[in-house]
């Protein structure tokens, strides 16, 4: 059974190598790095580690990069697909924990949750995330404990039912919308996200306040049927 790890990466030459080494050490060989138009050597780093490296010739956003990796994985007969972070925020030891309900309990998607694991996190981030949870509940009537966690697992069927059309950070909401709309069998699994100082610099990954407002507006427009 082939498990594909999809890693969207933008200017991650510093940390990507270590992330890939950690995954390979644990026996994951189907790793797909999608370089989303980086201006540094992200693509070269991925290539040097002998993993599949796809290059977006211009930046299209994290959602677009994830979907490129998902499309590639599906084309290459992936049975399971994992969304994984490129800068070491996700723990590779938790991948099997995410996959277990899909493999053993017939779930189609497993979503990592920081709140189920009672993880400590900065207050500001906690408030924003709780706001996101409320918003997703209001807009899509799907009640979760964590809504913008990038650590996810899908079965092949689950991946086909959650094909993303949004390019940027709003893909996280779109996945949940598709899960609800296409009746994807999902489960939340407690995971721990590693917060080092470099991860906490706001806006580093395009999640600043203005991006949040933009995402909200796009969600509303999408809901209006544009």
């Amino acid at each position, binding site marked *: 059974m082939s498990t594909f790890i999809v890693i969207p990466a933008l200017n991650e030459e510093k940390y990507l190598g270590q992330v890939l080494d950690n995954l390979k050490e644990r026996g994951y060989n189907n790793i797909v790095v999608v370089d989303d138009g980086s201006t540094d050597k992200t693509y070269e780093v991925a290539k040097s580690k002998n993993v599949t*490296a*796809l*290059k977006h*010739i*211009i930046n*299209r956003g994290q959602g*677009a990069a994830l979907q*490129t990796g998902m499309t590639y994985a599906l084309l290459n007969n992936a049975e399971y697909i994992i969304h994984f972070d490129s800068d070491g925020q996700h723990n590779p030891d938790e991948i099997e924990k995410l996959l277990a309900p899909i493999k053993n309990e017939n779930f189609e998607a497993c979503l990592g949750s920081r709140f189920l694991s009672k993880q400590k996190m900065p207050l500001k981030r906690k408030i924003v995330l709780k706001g996101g949870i409320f918003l997703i509940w209001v807009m899509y009537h799907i009640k979760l404990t964590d809504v913008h966690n990038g650590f996810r697992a899908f079965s092949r069927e689950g991946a086909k039912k959650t094909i993303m*059309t949004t390019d940027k950070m709003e893909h996280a909401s779109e996945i949940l919308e598709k899960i609800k709309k296409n009746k994807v069998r999902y489960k939340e699994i407690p995971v721990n996200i590693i917060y080092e100082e470099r991860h906490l610099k706001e806006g580093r990954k395009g999640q600043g306040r203005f991006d949040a407002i933009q995402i909200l507006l796009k969600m509303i427009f999408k809901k209006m049927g544009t």
Partner: protein
Amino acid sequence: MDFIQIIILIFALFAFSRVILNIKNRLESMFWMVFWLGVMAAAIYPTFVIKLAEILGVSSGIYLSIYATLIVLSYMIFRLYAKLEDTEKKITKIIRTVAIKNESKTSKNNR
């Protein structure tokens, strides 16, 4: 006829001719034809706008024109937004196809 009426009439005629010369979407073209014909009618018979304003309960013809313009502009922004989103999606599709094709080319060459 006042000078401003002539200017509006010429501009509306020009816009009307552009719509006819660039018919792509019938429904949309019809909308714009009716719109520009309305502008021409308003330029030739300003009393028509005043009458219409009275019927619609707007205090003056000028206000009616401003309201109509705002509605049309808002609609245009909405359409532009939708079109832009559509174009963005197409660009992503191209970028994705190129990325996947290039990878399969590279792996074939490495075999």
